[in-house]
């Protein structure tokens, strides 16, 4: 029975070593900063090449939305309050789309340095409140934007 026990021990040693190494590697991987979204600042700093398909996460800049009268073509800027990226998009915008809203756009930068979006998605946070509460908060100076910014951990 001795060798049987030895075998069992070797399995346990093998599994523990394997798993602890795996956990070590995972922790290392988590410490690495992995980009899911680019911020407008990263785009402004030229981290993205022309034509490369990316996602940008940011806020719709106040007063930047312009739409054409005869088509669904819109233009707006997305911002992280440091840099802006101008975005062109043709299509229906999501209902949540408004100025100050957190959004994600998919697309690529064209030769003119304009971001041509193929898709615009509104990112909603987990805070729900009624219009009255919102108005009260705004009156108290707690802007919804701050609150959206604080809950935007994508980058």
């Amino acid at each position, binding site marked *: 029975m001795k060798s049987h026990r030895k075998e069992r021990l070797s399995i346990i040693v093998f599994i523990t070593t394997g798993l602890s190494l795996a956990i070590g590697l995972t922790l290392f991987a988590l410490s690495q900063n992995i980009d*899911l979204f680019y911020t407008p600042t990263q785009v402004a700093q030229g981290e993205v090449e022309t034509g490369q398909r990316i996602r940008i996460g940011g806020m719709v800049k106040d007063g930047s939305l312009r739409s054409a009268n005869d088509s669904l073509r819109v233009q707006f800027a997305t911002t992280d309050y440091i840099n802006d990226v101008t975005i062109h998009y043709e299509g229906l915008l999501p*209902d*949540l789309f408004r100025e100050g809203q957190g959004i994600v756009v998919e697309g690529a930068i064209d030769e003119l340095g304009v971001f041509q979006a193929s898709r*615009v998605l509104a990112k*909603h946070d987990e805070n*729900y409140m009624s219009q009255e509460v919102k108005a009260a908060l705004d009156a108290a100076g707690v802007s919804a934007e701050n609150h959206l910014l604080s809950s935007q951990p994508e980058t």
Partner: protein
Amino acid sequence: MWLWFSKLGSPKWFYELSGKWLPWLIGPMALLLIVGIIWALLFVPPDYQQGNTIRIMYIHVPFASISLAFFPLMALAGTITLVWRMKLADIVAKTAAPLGAWFTALALASGSIWGSDIWGTWWIWDGRLTSMLLQFFLLIGVISLRSALEDAEAAAKACAVLSIVGCINVIVIKYSVDWWNTLHQPSSPFSLSNEAPNPPEVWIPLVIMIFAVYLFFAVSLILSMRNEILVRERRSEWVQQLVQAT
């Protein structure tokens, strides 16, 4: 304690006991459901951003939250099946799988409908959505493995192994796809640590609906478990007596 444990494993005992439990589960379920739905549909203030679509949350969140419980539940039942060979554990595992597929499907459908308004798309390969979809596929895998294996005992054990492996995998899938692509909001509809916590008129009905759906899950699980027990024990004395009595 041990006696109680082995007694719990006996299908007959469970059948009798669950018969007594059912009214006590169905009553509160109906009550909570009625209160929850009326509250959610009529009294919840429209969200400042989403308007009335917030009412979808009261169906989506309970279903999504319970869908996450299926793999751990099946893995737990599977472990009990493998270690103690308790009959009842396998009955739980067998009946939970199709229910899980349905609950997951409804969570996906309601989420997709909700997303069509607020995100602007019916489907996106977002982390949450994708991992839910893959969980759905894995549940289908468990169900089809069960139906393919003819020997009931082998099927029970094979599904137990698959559920345990699947449980680990669902966790890995969840992390990997979250990391891959995420649009879904964090799931803290009533986290109080936020700087602007969700008001009670938003989260109380949600808690009510969550409890209602959990009870609904318990009721439907017990109902299908009872059927499964009747089929499995059809040759036993007590089932035959029960059949003749009806």
